[in-house]
């Protein structure tokens, strides 16, 4: 017995008490049968298809409900992102008017980002917004001397308007950048 053993001799004798702890009577008699039952249950469990095993697990119902709810939310959001009718009506009309005036095809509009918005479309939903969405393309007559600019901003729609187009205050802002000076700079048409 080394010095380390001597140091812990009292502890070793105290730990001997643990060897006298015994389970309830009959426990070891019943345990092999419990083990056999557990093995049979395990074999039967592993023979079942995976979805039945999944369904048998506790807590699968809340998880399924949560997954369905999440799927529903994603589905609604996806539908809203694809459906043009779900987007605000005024920006769509502005885009059409911009396409008409600038000559840019409406089909070149930025791709949808989802939730009814398009790239670069921080569009005001109100016509009196201080941050209207304006086209970055120059007017078609600006660098084409032969093409005469409109005489002035007018309340008349200069070109053919799509069905249902209505003139409104928001559209007026779209034409504010057409200065009258352009009329004097532009060469006179024969």
């Amino acid at each position, binding site marked *: 017995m080394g010095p380390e053993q001597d140091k812990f001799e009292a502890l070793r004798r105290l730990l001997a008490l643990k060897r*006298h*702890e015994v*389970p309830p009577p009959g*426990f070891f008699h019943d*345990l092999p049968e419990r083990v056999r039952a557990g*093995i049979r249950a395990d074999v039967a469990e592993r023979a079942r298809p995976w979805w039945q095993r999944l369904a048998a697990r506790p807590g699968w119902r809340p998880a399924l409900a949560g997954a369905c709810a999440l799927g529903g939310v994603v589905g609604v959001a996806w539908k809203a992102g694809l459906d043009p009718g779900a987007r605000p009506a005024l920006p769509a009309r502005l885009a059409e008017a911009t396409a008409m005036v600038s000559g840019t095809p409406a089909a070149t509009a930025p791709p949808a980002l989802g939730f009814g918005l398009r790239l670069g479309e921080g569009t005001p939903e109100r016509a009196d917004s201080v941050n209207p969405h304006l086209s970055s393309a120059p007017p078609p007559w600006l660098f084409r001397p032969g093409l005469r600019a409109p005489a002035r901003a007018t309340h008349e729609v200069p070109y053919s308007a799509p069905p249902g187009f209505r003139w409104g205050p928001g559209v007026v802002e779209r034409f504010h950048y057409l200065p009258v000076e352009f009329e004097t700079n532009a060469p006179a048409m024969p």
Partner: protein
Amino acid sequence: MAASDSGTDSGEERALVARAQEGDLEAYDTLVRRYQERLYATLYHMTSNHEDAADLTQETFVKAFRALRTFKGDAGFFTWLYRIAVNKTINFLKQRRHRGQVSLNDLDFNAENDPDLVALISDRTPRREVSLRELQERLNMALQRLSEEHRMVVTLHDIQGLKHEEIAAMMHCNVGTVRSRLFYARQQLQAYLSDWLK
């Protein structure tokens, strides 16, 4: 039960294991009866809870039967079985850490006559039975304050009497780690139980 006869890797046991690997439940039943007391005792000393130890013992035997085909015989069946039990118990205890409840077993009749224990308690109280129960509770509480790894080493060595090498094989560590864990765990226990060890 404390004696270290874990090297029982006789031809008879190998035959039982081979039959169990073929799905013979009778053969496996024999192995269960052979090792159930020692396995249960280890798990009980680790958990200080009879119900938890009973469930863990059953689950260990079920899992061992399922994994029996992977048993190659490199180590003895007892060592292989204990590896499963050790891993399962340590995982269980790490999950149970914040709700450690004790459910202590009764002491057998021999406890009152154990000369080591009699020497410890004789000068503390004339009511030996009450004192033994109190000592049992204090001892289990002190063991529960150790980490799972330190408690496992003390249980396997100081209570169940396994050798350092056997413990190292069961816990996937080297013998030096077993020795250092044992030394540290004993120091901790001695501090926790200082009023009983004066």
